[in-house]
């Protein structure tokens, strides 16, 4: 066999040349830099308003990122993703109502609770496909919602107010809004880096392959269930982290965090930004929250404007905002061409 011999000599001949990380991640770097500069811009104007809005953008960026892992890369349409947000938030609320206010305990509890919920509900819902999967995840989401409503000791329907933000080994690390913002942004950057590594890894390639053609993947020998369950748990835990941050931001926890409408909003964020690209999820979360804020300044019926806008995006900008930007000459090359 002479053919493989000469092809083996130069590794991957016509692959695109490998650029340094900062160049491959130009869009992400620009995005995170812009977010890092927000507090300085905020200092010029209505600081606390702008900062709290952008903190929500960052937190929902993490939640949307986690949903993009399963929805965008795994083609698993989870309609109960807000439940994980609630799991993370209630872990903070319940522990803090029992006097445990340290993040060193709250954060692992939030991650463990949402991961466990993902493991149990994922193991059951991943046995279903397509519309049935959507319906089962929705059902589990509603189950979590009504469970929270029924927790009379923890405020039931009304939710509960926290006595303050989490501490870290007794230190008030996120008491100030600015510090909290940067801590949240730090988590977002770490989550992004984790997701980016995950989707390119062996594990991520199996997940992406299953999105394209599950039968083909099983026919080369991958038992898909365990891989999909694993990514479901990772996404659930990551969304639990967002829940932990959300509870701390509002210093309030309520069942409203896990309504099915909230799950729908998370899907909208990911689709709006661009499925299966990771940056898209963050851009989508930002676009959604900023548009909501801006439009609701004009009218309380802002959804009347937002709805048709979303329809237009889905119809005419396939691939969401990121997809539209990619059509600008040179943009795709600049951003690194992921996804």
């Amino acid at each position, binding site marked *: *066999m002479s*053919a*493989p011999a000469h*092809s*083996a000599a130069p*590794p*991957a001949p*016509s*692959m695109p040349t490998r650029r340094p990380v900062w160049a491959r991640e130009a869009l992400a770097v620009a995005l995170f830099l812009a977010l890092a500069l927000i507090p300085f811009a905020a200092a010029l104007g209505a600081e606390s308003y702008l900062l709290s809005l952008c903190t929500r953008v960052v937190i929902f960026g993490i939640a949307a990122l986690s949903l993009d892992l399963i929805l965008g890369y795994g083609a698993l349409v989870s309609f109960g993703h807000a439940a994980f947000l609630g799991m993370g938030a209630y872990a903070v609320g319940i522990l803090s109502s029992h006097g445990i206010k340290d993040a060193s305990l709250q954060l692992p509890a939030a991650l463990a609770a949402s991961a466990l919920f993902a493991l149990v509900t994922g193991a059951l819902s991943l046995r279903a496909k397509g519309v049935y999967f959507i319906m089962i995840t929705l059902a589990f989401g509603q189950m979590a919602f009504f469970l929270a409503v029924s927790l009379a000791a923890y405020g039931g329907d009304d939710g509960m107010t926290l006595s303050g933000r989490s501490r870290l080994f007794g230190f008030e690390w996120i008491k100030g809004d600015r510090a909290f913002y940067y801590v949240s942004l730090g988590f977002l950057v770490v989550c992004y880096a984790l997701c980016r*590594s*995950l989707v*390119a*890894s*062996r*594990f*991520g*390639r*199996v997940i*992406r*392959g299953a999105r*394209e*053609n599950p*039968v*083909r*993947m*099983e*026919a*080369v*020998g*991958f*038992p898909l269930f365990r*891989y999909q369950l*694993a990514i479901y748990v990772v996404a659930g835990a990551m969304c639990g982290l967002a829940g932990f941050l959300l509870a701390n931001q509002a210093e309030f926890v309520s069942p409203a965090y896990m309504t099915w409408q909230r799950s729908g909003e998370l899907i909208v964020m990911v689709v709006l930004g661009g499925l299966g690209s990771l940056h898209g999820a963050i851009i989508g979360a930002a676009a959604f929250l900023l548009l909501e804020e801006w439009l609701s300044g004009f009218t309380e019926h802002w959804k009347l404007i937002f709805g048709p806008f979303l329809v237009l995006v889905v119809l005419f900008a396939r691939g969401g905002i990121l997809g539209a930007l990619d059509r600008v000459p040179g943009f795709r090359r600049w951003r690194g061409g992921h996804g």
Partner: protein
Amino acid sequence: MADRPVLSLVNLRKAYGALVVTDDVSLDIPAGEFHAVIGPNGAGKTTLIHQISGLAPSDSGQILLDGQDVTRLSMPQRVSRGLVRSFQITSILPGFSALENVALAVQARSGSSFRFFGDAAKEEALNHPARAALAEVGLEARMHMRASLLSHGEKRQLELAIALAAQPRVMLLDEPLAGTGHEESEALIALMKRLKGRATILLVEHDMEAVFALADRVSVLVYGRVIASGPPQAVRENAEVRAAYLGEEELA
């Protein structure tokens, strides 16, 4: 144990409601044999492949691989034991490059895929055997092309490369020539000729010319039943086969 069959079907049966699609099929395929299954449309050939590969469950009967019962195993479990299939309707990962399509088959048999770090697309240990498999089917020049952009014949070649990269001991080929043009099928037949002896092969095919050129033994499936099994020449001359099936065809 040279003469023990690598693949045995024992009284295999499957029905969809009242329609019996696999009716008491028993077949022994010794190591290294190129065995072809022919039969008219609707004879249950693809269902048989689905049952052997694990894509469709069997109602009763047994499938033995090296004497071990694999009837209840899932498709991935059978693949890990060396039982690999291709599909009649091209089944590839359209958004992946040809190389990654094949590299995934290598990945499936090369250690754990629960690795969350490191760029899988750059793993030379996966890409090297994948390139060799692509070279073997003559698709090397196309390896960085998106699989969806390949021509139909090239997609069929890619499927064979994927199956090869899984290092099968038994290959189930479900009409690899389906929908290919004359030149494409010539190339695929030449390729299958080269595969002969490297793995035990069970081929389901419509193309008689290909079947009689390649097969060591031929089985004829009609309404889910094996009505004849033997060397190509004997099957060709079998009166029952002629009446049931071959009579419709041009016979050399």
